[in-house]
């Protein structure tokens, strides 16, 4: 267990900035997830932390000691790679114990620790097999075994579940969480899957274009996204947005969308004339019979274009005039494409973002 800190970290590849002014302190035993779209710099940051990439400027510290110039093997970290990086010519036992042999530990200790790790991950029966004879989930477990057997200060995971199918991914996610609860090692986990980020993280770091957009608990980034980017990235289906200009004030405040629709935002205190993006999540949209909303709610009318029954709920894609919006409901109502639908949304569940900066208002 160790604290990890990244202060003013920059990474340049030639003239291209991959990571810019990255500042983060990770507490001991904390599970931090870097999430963001492809090319946002999350894996590069992880690789700098691992020592696999040089830091262009800034300081990375593990347990208070700067490690910028420390070789990966001397950082006391373990990393699980996207493609598992299992050594194909070694069996599971040798794969897991490979790092211990590098440390020239006594043979007995290597055997004990390897068996211990195999036991934790349910690999006892597979120790003699080679990676080629394992399923995706088993390979994943071996990769994790290789990491935990070394009892490192920090675990680094680089999209470890992205090669698994949805069902297995869900299972491994739970196993990972269980593992962390058990070993309590400081963990940095990179993914582009916001569901993984939300379910695993103590804190999420959302990155975009090499910069941190927001750092917060899953609850914070979901309920109070710091920017329009975060709002659109976290949540599934993604948040809906309406772009327009604020008109009126107080009880007469409204959003006049760029396509001409008016959405009443009574009580909204954003200055008249300001260009904003109004955001609302599909799960907060309630189907309503009447167009007029109850007090403290806003109403959005739309025409249903696509209906996707999911079993426990139905996802509706609609044309709201100002753009496409997605809503969902769990009721018994039956719709057909082309039907009109009214959605009511509680005003305190609305999110406002400045159109120019993208920041939360």
């Amino acid at each position, binding site marked *: 267990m160790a604290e990890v800190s990244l202060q003013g970290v920059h990474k340049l590849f030639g003239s291209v900035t991959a990571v810019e002014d990255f500042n983060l302190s990770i507490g001991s035993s904390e599970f931090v997830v870097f999430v963001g779209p492809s090319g946002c710099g999350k894996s590069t940051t992880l690789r700098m932390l691992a020592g*696999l990439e040089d830091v262009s400027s800034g300081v990375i510290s593990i347990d208070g000691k700067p490690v910028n110039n420390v070789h*990966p093997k001397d950082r006391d970290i373990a990393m699980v*790679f996207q*493609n598992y*990086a299992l*050594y194909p010519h070694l069996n599971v036992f040798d794969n897991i114990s*490979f790092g211990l042999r*590098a440390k020239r530990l006594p043979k007995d200790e290597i055997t004990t620790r390897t068996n211990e790790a195999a036991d934790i991950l349910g690999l006892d029966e597979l120790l003699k097999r080679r990676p080629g004879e394992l399923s995706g989930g088993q390979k994943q477990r071996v990769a994790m075994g290789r990491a935990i057997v070394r009892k490192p200060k920090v675990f680094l995971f680089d999209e470890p579940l992205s090669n698994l199918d949805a069902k297995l991914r869900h299972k491994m996610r739970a196993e990972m969480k269980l593992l962390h609860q058990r070993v309590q090692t400081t963990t940095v986990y990179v993914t582009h899957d916001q569901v993984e980020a939300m379910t695993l993280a103590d804190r999420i770091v959302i990155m975009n274009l090499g910069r941190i957009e927001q750092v917060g608990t899953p609850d914070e980034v979901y309920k109070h996204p710091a920017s329009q980017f975060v709002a659109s990235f976290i949540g599934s289906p993604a948040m809906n947005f309406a772009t327009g200009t604020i008109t009126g004030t107080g009880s007469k405040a409204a959003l006049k969308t760029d396509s001409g629709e008016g959405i009443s935002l009574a009580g909204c205190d954003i200055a008249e004339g300001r260009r904003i993006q109004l955001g609302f999540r599909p799960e907060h949209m309630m189907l309503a019979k009447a167009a007029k909303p109850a007090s403290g709610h806003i109403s959005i009318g739309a025409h249903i274009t696509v209906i996707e029954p999911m079993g426990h709920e139905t996802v509706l894609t609609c044309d709201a005039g100002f753009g496409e919006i997605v809503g969902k409901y769990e009721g018994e109502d039956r719709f057909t494409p082309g039907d009109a639908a009214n959605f009511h949304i509680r005003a305190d569940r609305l999110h406002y973002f400045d159109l120019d900066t993208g920041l939360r208002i």
Partner: protein
Amino acid sequence: MSDVNATMARLERARPGKVILWTLLFLGGVVMITPIVFMAATSFKTGQEVFELSIIPDRPTLENYLFILQESKFMRWMLNSLWVATFSTASVLFFDSLVGYTLAKFDFRGRQIVFIAILSTLMIPTEMLIIPWYMMSRSFGWIDTYWGIAFPGLMTGFGTFLMRQFFMSLPDELIEAARIDGWSEFAIWWRIAMPLVIPALSALAIFHFLGNWTAFIWPLIVTNDPDIYTIPVGIASFNGEFQMDWEIVMTASCLATLPTLLVFLLLQKFIIRGIMLAGLKG
């Protein structure tokens, strides 16, 4: 019934294109095998019979073999060839793969220039290098030494290129994982990278070993002492000034071919794969 069906299916598959292909391959085989058959046949003939085109000798004899094994330095030459080819092959496997790995997996200034420089050595014909090699050998006192025979082949541009191509196909993550696991760069090369390119190493070993086993010009030039001769030079030494004992030459050639045949039979799978790989990667 199923046999009949299988035969029918086979006949159906024998399209005209395939028949032509098989015929060409058969003719090619005949062209390549005929000299070997004559070589083997001649080795059992007496001097008078050598120029008769019969495959089965009128009076088969083992005298040529007895002469070679008992009265020439043939076994010594075999050992010389074995030693030079083995040493040279071991060296090539070590150095070519080490350099190939470095060129494939390490990013350093001038990497491309070094690679092109190594690659460009492939374009220099051996005949052009013989004079500088000889001058070096004379200066360093390597004439009539095993080292003198072996040194030009201790590292090759082709081997470096072949190994580089193979190492490039190894995922970087394996190397990075080993790096994080705490192994030194040399240990990573030896324990992780090398075992994963065994097919390429086998191909390189076979090519290089056979190339050295049959090498003639350079061993001929760098050796004067019959005790240091390699097999091809030794065989050539059966040439008299005024006559050629073909039956002796053919017998020695037969014996010299045996180890290579053995290597081929044992490593047939690797040789074919090696040729395919060299074709694909090269």
